[in-house]
């Protein structure tokens, strides 16, 4: 597992009216790769876990809006 965001390249027609999106992405969250969770996985502290939405680091896969990413980039 290298990345949880996979990409694909849709066909682009010369007659597509909207500006083409050349690369599309989709999410493949950690649960798809885990199998039956093994015991003793590394944990967050309780406060970190609440903020992350999971107790186990291996499942943490946050989603940000384009607005948030743009602010981050500034």
């Amino acid at each position, binding site marked *: 597992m290298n990345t949880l965001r996979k990409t694909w390249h849709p066909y682009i027609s010369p007659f597509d009216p909207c500006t083409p999106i050349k690369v599309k992405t989709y999410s493949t969250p950690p*649960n798809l790769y885990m199998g*039956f969770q093994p015991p003793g996985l590394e944990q967050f502290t309780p406060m970190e876990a609440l*903020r992350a939405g999971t107790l186990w680091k291996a499942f943490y896969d946050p*989603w940000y809006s384009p607005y948030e990413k743009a602010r981050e980039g500034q």
Partner: protein
Amino acid sequence: MWVYEKKLQYPVRVSTCNPKLAKFLIEQYGGADGELAAALRYLNQRYSIPDKVIGLLTDIGTEEFAHLEMIATMVYKLTKDATPDQMKAAGLGDHYANHDNALFYHNAAGVPWTATYIQAKGDPIADLYEDIAAEEKARATYQWIINMSDDTDLNDGLRFLREREIIHSQRFREAVEILKEERDKKKFF
């Protein structure tokens, strides 16, 4: 029976008076893959599922009600003091005409919640696969709502809810493995 606790599961914050976001968010309140549908789906299926996974359906179903309250809180905060004009400008004029600023179980397009959103086939594998699909669909819905929201505080709560879908999906996948009864034959504890 169920007992209510006077606290949210997660400290929900909303930073802007933005009824437009409430219109999108209501999808997770009364939509097909929303928290109400999730809670009712799992708590109904548990009566006919093998004993080994009833606990899981009960607990996830119960957590979904906590998520329903979080969504309600977000919608409430986003519309609390919004004027009729603000509601109208946000595309909530149709909603306001019928409900004022009250919450209602409908989706983002105003279609009322219906029991046909949920399934109970009585076949444990069919039901658990439905549950896994429901969690992935809810995860996707949160992604699309987050994509349209510029409110970092709100997105913080929505990210929590999206992460919970990932965990629930994981547990339902494990429930399928338990029902396959192959795990005990291997070296797992």
